């Protein structure tokens, strides 16, 4: 199938709107992706036609809602090639998934154990581990990166030892777009019997992941970065590891039997799904995956790479512009600064021209510290963006530069 971006754009109602009098150019996809009509409709359809609480009622509506919700879980399982559907835990998003694992390990780790994270983590993948280390006396080690924004794997080798219990790394850096060599990271960790959690928030809508092939222990992501709704995501974990983790929250749905003496926990996945979940969100997540798969992640990836190469080349023609994150393996994210100009100023001017980019430290202050900068301007592309939009963006950057220099 040939990739028809103009046809795809028609699926996204928001792309038709104007901002500040200009057609919207949405280059903040790493923060959240836009939603196709079919996903929006699925939420309306749920509330209009079969809204009811799942897993409990014997009545028809509850059965129907449970079936569609559980089908969404299976869609996630198949999309990522997990072995079992009960290895997919619905969460409120990536951060929630990370916290389930971190909180579980707080009971399993002991003083002197070591946790390895990468130097390019999002704050949500640093803070829980720091808290975990404070609680357990475990020690946090950091895999450094080089000037290209690429992890130095020989340093990782040096950090690994029999003390290493956990490794946490993002699949793709949100601030730089670097794709980390997670397969190699996992293989090496497993040589020391350490478990690996991968934060896939920035990866899932851009590159494909096969959990069994990667042999990853835990993987987390959010629906809203994959054309799905906000407030829903998943935690994948290998069955035996999830079974060993203590539950995260108490409440309804996560129990098997409750007496005042003792409660036995439900089996996976319900052990980690206390309370009524985001039902419409889970269902719409499933629809979003269908939508992405109909286009094809590989087709999306190659189109986005074209956009990335085109924009990179055009941006580098601007004098004084520096890109952060210049490794070979990256997704369609460009983080940059222009000499002597604050990223906030650039973001403000291009916003006036209808262009949405992110400015600031992108919740990754350690990266900004590494490059000794207050922040960057970050343009992140999706498969519904076009080269014409990139041209408009380049013109806007040039205009901002002229005004601000």
């Amino acid at each position, binding site marked *: 199938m040939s990739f028809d971006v103009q046809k795809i754009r028609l699926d996204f109602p928001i792309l038709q709107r104007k901002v*500040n009098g200009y057609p919207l150019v949405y280059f903040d996809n790493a923060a959240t992706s836009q939603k196709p009509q079919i996903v929006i409709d699925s939420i309306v359809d749920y509330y209009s036609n079969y809204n009811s609480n799942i897993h409990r009622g014997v009545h028809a509506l509850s059965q129907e809602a449970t079936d569609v919700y559980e089908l969404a879980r299976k869609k996630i399982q198949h999309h990522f090639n997990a072995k079992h559907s009960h290895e997919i835990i619905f969460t409120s998003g990536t951060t929630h998934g990370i916290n389930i694992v971190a909180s579980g390990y707080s009971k399993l780790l002991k003083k002197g154990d070591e946790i390895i994270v990468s130097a390019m983590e999002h704050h949500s993948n640093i803070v829980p581990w720091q808290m975990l280390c404070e609680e357990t006396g475990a020690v946090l080690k950091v895999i450094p990166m080089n000037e290209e924004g690429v992890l130095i794997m020989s340093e990782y080798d040096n950090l690994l030892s029999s003390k290493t219990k956990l490794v946490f790394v993002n699949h793709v850096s949100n601030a730089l777009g670097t794709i980390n060599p997670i397969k190699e990271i996992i293989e090496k960790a497993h040589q020391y019997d350490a478990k690996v959690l991968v934060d896939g928030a920035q990866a899932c809508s851009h590159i494909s992941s096969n959990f069994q092939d990667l042999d990853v222990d835990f993987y987390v992501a959010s629906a809203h970065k994959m054309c799905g709704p906000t407030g829903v995501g998943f935690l994948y974990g290998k069955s035996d590891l999830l079974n060993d983790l203590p539950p995260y929250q108490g409440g309804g749905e996560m129990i098997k039997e409750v007496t005042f003496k003792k409660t036995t926990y439900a089996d996976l996945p319900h052990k980690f799904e206390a309370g009524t979940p985001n039902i419409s969100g889970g269902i719409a997540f499933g629809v979003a995956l269908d939508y992405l798969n109909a286009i094809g992640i590989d087709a999306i990836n190659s189109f986005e790479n074209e956009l990335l190469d085109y924009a990179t080349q055009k941006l580098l023609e601007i004098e004084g512009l520096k890109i952060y994150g210049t490794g070979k393996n990256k997704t369609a994210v460009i983080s940059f600064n222009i000499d002597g*100009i*604050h*990223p*906030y*100023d650039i*973001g*403000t*001017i291009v916003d*006036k021209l209808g262009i949405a980019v992110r*400015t*600031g*430290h992108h919740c990754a202050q350690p990266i900004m510290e590494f490059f000794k900068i*207050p*922040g960057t301007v970050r343009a992140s592309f999706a498969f519904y963006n076009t080269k014409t939009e990139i041209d408009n963006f380049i013109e806007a950057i040039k205009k901002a530069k002229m*005004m*601000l220099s």
Partner: protein
Amino acid sequence: MTIESIQEEIIDEFSMFDDWMQRYEYMIDLGKSIPLIQDSNKTDENLIKGCQSKVWLNAELKEDKVAFTADSDAIITKGIIAILLRVFSDKKPKEILAANTNFIDEIGLKDHLSPTRANGLVSMIKQIKLYALAYETQLKK
């Protein structure tokens, strides 16, 4: 001049601009030209951290008026600071406390004072008011 009359004056000046570009060019010029604070006052104590840009604010009581100096690492933020200082600096604490910032709305810069911008300006205005309150209490004693 009273705070109110300075605000009127600024609204008048901005009404001469035809579009946002001119407004921003004016603010950028303000941001570039005016030395707003002494380097010795750009201390951590005077720093207001925004997620997007940093703001430094220093206050001194000179006779019965508060003299503010301030700066930012982002030039548009600095331009707005220049406007805010023109309104609030060298005024009596009582007048500062009574004043509002509605004029920012009228000159089309409301967005910059939204808390979600996280550029430090909302905190700066709060800080200006707090200084005024502190000096007002001091003067009464």
